[in-house]
């Protein structure tokens, strides 16, 4: 079972490396959205520090949506997904492998460029650290919940817009606790622990339920 997981993960990464533009689109989208806000809001240091957590997270949500539509689409179009459904391995393992690949390609790069946000928004090193940690906890949730939406809208016309409408409301807890922790860390007496614990709980919950829900949705989409 683990072998299958690794095999799909390796294949998806290999495919992405042969089409590098797709990885960079997400990354640059994030950077551009984040850098537009100081231009619109002004360069007041206090204001920027206050809006930074929310801006970083909203940009991350939107960026991770960008690549969601393609998560299953190419496998669906060329018949690979149908073959995957017919393998003796449980479909949720295959789905989990695809989610992991999606996170490695779209979530992890966002964590790594978070210091850029720190520079643009005059954040302290400690706050940047918290931001990276919260993004590390939260972006896998985005990939996992997003996969459910991608599976449900598979093969529908205009699926991309529909995914956003379905999935963005479900991202609200991630946004609230993710940016909440970063805001707390800018305060002297801030305590980020409750936020971290709640976000970790969401991570575990989606790790358990989303592969199963996505697999069921895929079966319906392929009928």
């Amino acid at each position: 079972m683990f072998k299958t997981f690794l095999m799909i993960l390796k294949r998806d990464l290999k495919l992405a490396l042969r089409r590098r533009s797709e990885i960079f689109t997400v990354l640059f989208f994030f950077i551009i959205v984040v850098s537009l806000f100081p231009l619109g809001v002004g360069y007041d240091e206090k204001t920027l520090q206050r809006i930074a957590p929310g801006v970083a997270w909203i940009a991350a949500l939107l960026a991770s949506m960008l690549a969601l539509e393609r998560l299953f689409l190419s496998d669906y179009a060329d018949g690979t997904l149908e073959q995957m459904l017919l393998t003796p391995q449980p479909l949720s393992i295959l789905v989990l492998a695809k989610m992991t690949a999606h996170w490695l390609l779209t979530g992890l790069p966002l964590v790594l460029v978070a210091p850029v946000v720190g520079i643009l928004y005059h954040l302290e090193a400690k706050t940047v650290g918290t931001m990276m940690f919260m993004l590390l906890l939260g972006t896998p949730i985005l990939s996992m919940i997003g996969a459910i939406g991608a599976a449900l809208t598979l093969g529908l016309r205009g699926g991309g817009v529909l995914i956003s409408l379905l999935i963005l409301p479900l991202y609200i807890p991630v946004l609230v606790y993710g940016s909440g922790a970063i805001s707390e860390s800018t305060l002297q007496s801030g305590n980020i622990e409750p936020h971290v614990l709640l976000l970790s709980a969401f991570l575990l919950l989606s790790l358990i339920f989303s592969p199963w829900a996505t697999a069921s949705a895929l079966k319906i989409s392929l009928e």
Partner: protein
Amino acid sequence: MSLTVANLQCTRGDRQLFSGLNFQLKPKQLLFLEGQNGSGKTTLIRTLCGLFVADEGDILWQDQPIQEHLEAYRKELFYLGHLNAIKGDLTALENLRFNHAMSGQNCRDDDLLNALERIGLYGYEDFPTRQLSQGQKRRVALARLLLNKSPLWILDEPFVALDVAAVELLQSIISKHVEAGGMAILTTHQAVPLTQGEVQHLNLDQYASQAGTLSYV
């Protein structure tokens, strides 16, 4: 070992495709599915694979309903549809390796290369498949047949896009499989000559319900 279909009825949207379908397939038997366009050949094939659930009736593999023993059934099943399930960005060898490994059967690279050579892709193993022609892409997909040890093959229009030499090769692969005790279900108009074994024909038009038949005026 046998595949039994009893009183099967399938509907697609509002349209009933066929009903009261019965047949049994045993080792060394080859079944041809026939019927006009839209008679439900592909739907029947997808139902037989367990991708689509029939409205009524049973599909039994070894006398067990397939929906209840999907994992065991899928180990014994090889399905190839209209789509080739290959990635344009991967090479022929990588595609074959991945697709074959997904079916849960192990094999060495030598065997994979050997299969590609036999299917007529010698010298193309390391090309990204998007650079290959339609027929060559189909061959990459069909190379899996040479490695596959599943007893039941279900092939939807396997001869599409192939040239004369490849058609002959595929005919011989299928007939060898059936003669060695395998089973195969094909939708095609191409005959497959067998030296041993039995050929069955199933015409879906005979099972079409009244509303489903196209009327020509």
